[in-house]
């Protein structure tokens, strides 16, 4: 019989407490399971360097299943780089990532099966039709034909593109392409959907429309949504939890209300100002972007 000999501080124990009894081992397994289930994304001390330039600087965070999680920060803050590492497109310089329990570096295929992604720039084949793009995706993810057909119809209806399924993607507007990408990202029943600046360049109406789809899917299918944005009001309105990232570091995280409470500000905009000492502005972001580009060019650190 194993006993705890370490006394608990501030409490006098009368007798040693048995830790392992008939019920306990299962309790520990359940606890462990719960621990792993409780965060679908687990990031620890993640670093990414391009040459001399540190794009992501020792960030740690975790995301629970079914959560809508926002990465908020200016352009060039390290948001896309983080997403690329989470989705196996970039290899981290340091630190660990677990996505759905698997490591993107050592077991990329398991990780790839568990997420869907909508990139910042379109990633559709313009020369194929909407339906063909979906079919292509379904085949790549090895979905059986019946399931594929059924799910494609459902999702294309859901994003209101079923009537245009036979049209070539190059005839689509920006908003339609984005909707198609979302439908495609969801096709293989991912546990997590990553959206990198999903509403960039979309008009407010399309933006609202898109979020209503995603929120509905989050409710009905319990899918975890991880998105990056530099729109304050978007993060404020949709996200359950926000991490503010600037210059590659996470400066604050919590629910929108938490962040406002922590800073004593009424709006997230002011809270952001309080945390970072500056407002989100494109100008300075572009300078960082340029720096990163240069580091990429000369450092060559972006190739595996």
């Amino acid at each position, binding site marked *: 019989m194993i006993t705890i000999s370490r006394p608990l501080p501030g409490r006098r124990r009368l007798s040693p407490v048995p830790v392992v009894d008939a019920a306990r081992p299962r309790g520990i397994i359940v606890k462990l399971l719960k621990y792993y289930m409780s965060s679908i994304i687990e990031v620890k001390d993640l670093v990414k360097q391009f040459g001399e330039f540190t794009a992501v600087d020792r960030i740690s965070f975790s995301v629970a299943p079914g959560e809508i999680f926002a990465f908020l920060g200016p352009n060039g803050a390290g948001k896309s780089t983080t997403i*690329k590492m989470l*989705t*196996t*497109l*970039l*290899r981290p310089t340091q630190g660990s990532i677990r996505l759905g329990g698997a490591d993107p570096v050592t077991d990329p*295929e*398991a990780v*790839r*099966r568990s*997420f869907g*992604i909508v*990139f910042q*720039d*379109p*990633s*559709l*084949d*313009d*020369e*194929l039709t909407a339906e*063909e793009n979906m*079919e*292509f*995706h379904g*085949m*790549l*993810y*090895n979905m059986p034909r019946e399931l594929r057909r059924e799910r494609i119809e459902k999702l294309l209806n859901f994003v209101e593109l079923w009537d245009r399924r036979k049209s070539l993607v190059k005839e689509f507007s920006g908003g339609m392409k984005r909707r198609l990408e979302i439908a*495609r990202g969801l096709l293989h029943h991912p546990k997590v959907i990553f959206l990198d600046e999903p509403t960039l360049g979309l008009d407010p109406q399309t933006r609202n429309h898109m979020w209503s789809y995603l929120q509905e899917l989050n409710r009905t299918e319990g899918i975890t949504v991880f998105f990056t944005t530099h729109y304050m009001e978007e993060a404020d309105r949709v996200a359950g939890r926000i991490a503010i990232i600037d210059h590659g570091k996470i400066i604050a995280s919590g629910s929108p209300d938490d962040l406002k409470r922590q800073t004593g500000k009424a709006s997230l905009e002011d809270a952001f100002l309080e945390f970072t000492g500056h407002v989100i502005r494109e100008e300075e972001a572009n300078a960082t972007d340029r720096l990163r580009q240069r580091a990429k060019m000369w450092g060559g650190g*972006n*190739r*595996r």
Partner: protein
Amino acid sequence: MKTIYIMWLRELKRYFRSRSRMIGSLGQPLLFLLALGYGLGSVFRAAGEGSYFRFLGPGIIGMSIIFTAIFSGIQLIWDRQFGFLKETLVAPVDRFYIMLGRTLGGATVATLQGILVFFMAVIFGFRPEHWVLVPVAILFMLLVALLFTALGTGIASMLEDMQGFQLIMNFLVMPLFFLSGALFPLSGLPPVLSALTLVDPLSYGIDSFRALLIGTSYFGIALDLGVLVVVTLVFLVAGTYLFSRIEI
């Protein structure tokens, strides 16, 4: 298997959808075939080498194959720029199959293009030695197409954008074509030129087309096949390695 099939199918769909590309890429071979074939015909005959048009036919087939094949491989850069590459890179499949499917697709397109040029030549009076050997020649066309599509894909894996494209055309594709013996016989060349033709894999490709279509060969079909198979395998392996290293 599904991955290879869908990547292959995509290349074919794109090919059949762009009629302009199909017709456009027939223009150059046609010009070479007619202008050179008839223009140099009398000189060639006077030199006692027989019909230049007949000699040139297999060379021009080789030309259309190498151009289309390398171009198909290079299209990887477009996929990278227009973002589609990312869709394939985050899919839960081995990148080897993606690369293989793409390469097979590009090679099929290049072979179709070679067959089109063959029939175009037939329209203008080209007659193969034995019609029964034409299907075998088509298999060799596929092999040559595979070789150069893999080469194109491998090169494209190392390039970030289209800046290097012109460089590749001028310093790789054009030399490969001109030094392959597509336009002139390989015998009796100056030593340096002769050495260059020997290291050009397209020389062996075009030689095999000549062996099968007009019944003359410089290296012999067995050597042609050996070289083509080995070089194709090397390029496929190297191409796969480079492709698997791509980061976005």
